[in-house]
């Protein structure tokens, strides 16, 4: 793990970050005033964030844009109850922005949001009570919802970076994108289009509730994105990829050499992707055989498998059917009585976990309910062990909360999200895993996933697919994908590499409206059996 260097904690009185310090002092008192003034209010919480965001983009070797935004937002949740013990919630999210610089405006916006959420909770409670009167015992499930007591944790967490995001020169970021994009365009006429983008973000989040919690966490993010379209006489190829770290701009300008999630500098990363895209545009489309074949999948490809087939179905809100209309359910839990907890779901070689304490793109210390994040083992020697949860879903499952409820922005409601979710490494040498295959495919780099509703089946496309013949890599193909039933794919794993790598996932979507979240996923090289899809 990288050593922590510069730290960001407080801020000047002239920027949005000063509002965090103000609310650290005044927020709890505002919540107490609200509780005293509003009949039926049982609990209230405030989440606040201030964000300094810089970005730049270039396409086809020309500057496209440069932005610098300072934003601030708050989200409040209020729970109301009636004399029969029935409870209901209401939430309000507001992008308050520059008004956060004015203390009276900020407090007024907070009071207004709490009042709105309270009114919403009361409407919700009234309608719920009326429904229960009409339906009686038929709707008993609505009276049983339990939850762990709210967090009362107090802590202060600093962001980590070498180069201060607040003093970053926008021109330097713009030049990095421009030069990378120009270098790609200079590769030749095979490159039909390219776009290179970079962002730097400093984010300071605050969580305060009426149970006494006060948690201040700051984060520094950088991210580089590249999109390339190449076309040759043989065909065309679209590739995109991302690098990202919870660090300062140094991780894009100079690269990052962390053992678990290294990345080259943005220029080299973009050029490498462009060269690969050209090569693929000239490669034939995969026309795979019918039936299952041996597949060796690399860490980049397995990052998407870990994301879609381990991470998402390990979210307890999906498992408990709360996402049935959107993101789907989980093949790990058919019902509370019939599920995979403690049962084999894969080969004994298979281990997988989520760990927010690691220094990945999905690192954090506390979730947005104020619960400390910790490692959650999902699969242990092929046996499914447990879910990512919130305080409410932990209560429903009868387990301890593990700190996995997070919102993408303060104005959104926390959902259960992955952190750094990955297959754990094994003992095999990846070269040897290929050398042992008589006929099969080596599948490298992930592109696009398509997943069945409970994540029980998948088709994930790869950037590059190589034939393996007699233990050696053969011809390169494009438009290849791996298709399989999840349990069958995991059960057939017969070798796990010792080469664990994680990658940054910048855009995991979940919720209504959609929340887009950053996280890391990864794994070592894996070998299993699956069907291949082509173009």
């Amino acid at each position: 793990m990288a050593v922590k260097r510069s730290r960001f904690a407080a801020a000047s009185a002239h920027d949005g970050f000063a509002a965090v310090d103000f609310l650290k002092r005044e927020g709890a008192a505002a919540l107490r005033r609200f509780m005293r003034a509003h009949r039926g209010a049982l609990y209230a919480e405030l989440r606040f964030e201030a964000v300094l965001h810089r970005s730049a983009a270039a396409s086809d070797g020309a500057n496209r844009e440069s932005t610098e935004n300072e934003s601030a937002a708050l989200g409040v949740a209020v729970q109301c109850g009636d004399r029969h013990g029935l409870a209901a919630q209401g939430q309000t999210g507001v992008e308050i922005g520059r008004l956060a610089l004015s203390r009276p405006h900020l407090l007024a916006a907070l009071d207004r949001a709490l009042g709105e959420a309270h009114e919403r909770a009361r409407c919700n409670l009234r309608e719920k009570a009326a429904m229960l009167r009409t339906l009686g015992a038929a709707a008993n499930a609505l009276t049983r919802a339990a939850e762990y007591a709210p967090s009362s944790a107090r802590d202060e967490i600093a962001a980590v970076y070498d180069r201060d995001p607040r003093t970053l020169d926008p021109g330097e970021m713009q030049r990095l994108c421009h030069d990378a994009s120009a270098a790609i365009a200079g590769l030749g006429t095979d490159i039909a289009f390219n776009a290179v983008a970079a962002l730097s973000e400093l984010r300071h989040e605050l969580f305060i509730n009426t149970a006494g919690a006060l948690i201040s966490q700051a984060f520094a993010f950088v991210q580089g994105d590249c999109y390339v379209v190449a076309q040759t006489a043989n065909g065309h190829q679209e590739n995109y990829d991302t690098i990202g770290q919870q660090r300062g701009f140094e991780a894009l300008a100079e690269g990052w050499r962390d053992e678990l999630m290294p990345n080259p500098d943005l220029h080299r990363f973009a050029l490498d992707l462009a060269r690969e895209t050209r090569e693929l545009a000239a490669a034939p489309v995969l026309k795979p055989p019918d039936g299952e074949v041996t597949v060796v999948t690399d860490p980049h490809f397995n990052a998407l498998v870990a994301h879609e087939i381990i991470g998402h179905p390990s979210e307890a809100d999906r498992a408990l059917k709360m996402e049935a209309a959107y993101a789907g359910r989980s093949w790990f839990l058919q019902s509370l009585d019939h599920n995979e907890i403690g049962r084999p779901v894969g080969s004994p070689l298979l281990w997988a976990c989520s760990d927010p304490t690691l220094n990945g793109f999905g690192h954090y210390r506390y979730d947005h309910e104020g619960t400390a994040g910790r490692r959650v083992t999902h699969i242990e020697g092929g046996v499914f062990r447990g879910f990512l949860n919130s305080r409410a879903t932990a209560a429903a499952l009868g387990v301890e909360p593990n700190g996995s409820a997070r919102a993408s922005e303060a104005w959104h409601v926390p959902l259960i999200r992955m952190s750094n979710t990955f297959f754990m490494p094994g003992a095999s040498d990846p070269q040897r895993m290929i050398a042992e295959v008589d006929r099969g495919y080596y599948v490298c780099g992930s592109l696009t996933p398509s997943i069945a509703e409970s994540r029980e089946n998948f088709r994930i496309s790869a950037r590059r697919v190589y034939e393996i013949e007699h233990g050696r890599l053969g011809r390169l193909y494009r438009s290849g994908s791996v298709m399989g039933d999840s349990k069958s794919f995991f059960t057939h794993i017969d070798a796990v590499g010792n080469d664990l790598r994680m990658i940054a996932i910048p855009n995991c979507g979940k919720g209504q409206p959609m929340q887009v979240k950053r996280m890391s996923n990864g794994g070592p090289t894996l070998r299993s059996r699956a069907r291949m899809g082509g173009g």
Partner: protein
Amino acid sequence: MRAERELKQFVRAALALLAREADVAACEVYCSSSEHRVARLNYTSDIASRGVEEFKSLNADGFALRIVMRRDAQETATAAIAGDLSLEAVRAALERARHTTVADPHFPGLPAAPRILPRSIRAAVASDLMRTPDRAIAQAAWRIVGGAIGAYRAGAPLKLARPGLVIGGDLSLIRDRIAIGSSAFTDLRADQSAHFVASVTALVESLAAKGTATAVGGSRDAMSREGARLGRAAVTRALALRHGERPAAGAWRVVLGPQPIAEILNYMVMPSLTAGAFHAATSAYHGRFGTPVIDARLSLADDPHASTGPVRRRITCEGLPAAATELIRAGRLVGLLSNVYDSHRLATDEHRAEKLGAGANPDTAFPARNGYRMGESPARRYDGHPGSTGTNVMMRTRAGVGDRELIGAVGDGLYIGRIWYTYPINGQRAGDFTCTVSGDSYVIRDGKLAAPLAPNCLRINANIEQVFARPIAVGKRSSPAVVWGAPEAYFVPALALEAITLARIGDDTAG
């Protein structure tokens, strides 16, 4: 939400301030006030639940300014600020913009024509949803939950202790107001819209049953009416679809209902029908502009003024008149969604002829009628870049037939009413897609719906050409369909198709 008058006053004052800046040659001020209120539904008979799990609102007010520097007509910058509509905030945004100027050789200048909007499109459409209180949303949402539970009690074949009844979905109300002015316009322009979207999924897990119901609309009456119908409809459909069959893999004749057609259009076709996609050489119709790209019985258009469409727009977020865009006329590709930047980029693209193809008239222009600033929510935002987005996407048919004839045309096959997770598996341009059949589906025998199809037992592996280029028959009626996360509303027919490849899935977890 802020009133239209307040937004216009701010834009006027901000433009006056910017006009006094010596280094600014041209400027634009856009501001928006938006609200997305959501009542999320979650009832589970066997697991403790809250019924309405999240009852929330997301409010966003703010402005974005764009300046063009006097020293270089292609040196430009944008800056956005949330919350604060004051002149002090404008000064802060201006400083930030000066700090981040970029010389973009492709910058076309600010949108300029028409300098004044025709009187006929100045008045914004008012909807009573603009004034709908939380109480009405809570009532409609709980009516959905109550209707669903009541329908299950009335229609369940057995009184099971643990039936696994799940009701999910949401009722969402989306409202926004915008105002925009610029040094290139004589007038200030404003717009507002409000619509609701409701989507309900009902599962009875003990019966392996799943049904859905959706609605979109533009009035409070419609929202209340749909609240009373949707829960019942989803559960009734689920019960009718219990214990479905699991057909073998193979190439099947199928009818794709309105939701699958809307989903394939949304993820596979619409992203290819933009000027930006043609410029980036990623359109599935690369080199085919002006030529037949789908069956001649099908036409596709986007219409922000459609009388049946809930997504109403008078102007775009670039201040230009919103207008219907004909995309595909009788199978032939005739138009693209576009914004000012992308229209200019494609018009001046040195490879334009190759990208559009030999069938394109060299003088074809792509008017910027679709430049909307959207975020993750379907409301217009202050800080988004103008992209190319549809509003009410309408697929119309010629020589269409009724549902009975459509199903009859298949003979033996499948009716697929809902698909899920549809993505371009080999890139947008290849047109290959994959998805799973997630519910509302039937087995067709002898030209009739014969038995329910189990949800989540088949994966479709196909190409958009197989769907739209040679259907066996096309439905005559376009029905509304909701696509999760899409800002557009879809009105599409069902299509009967030949030889769609289906793979059997999930056998080791079924049951």
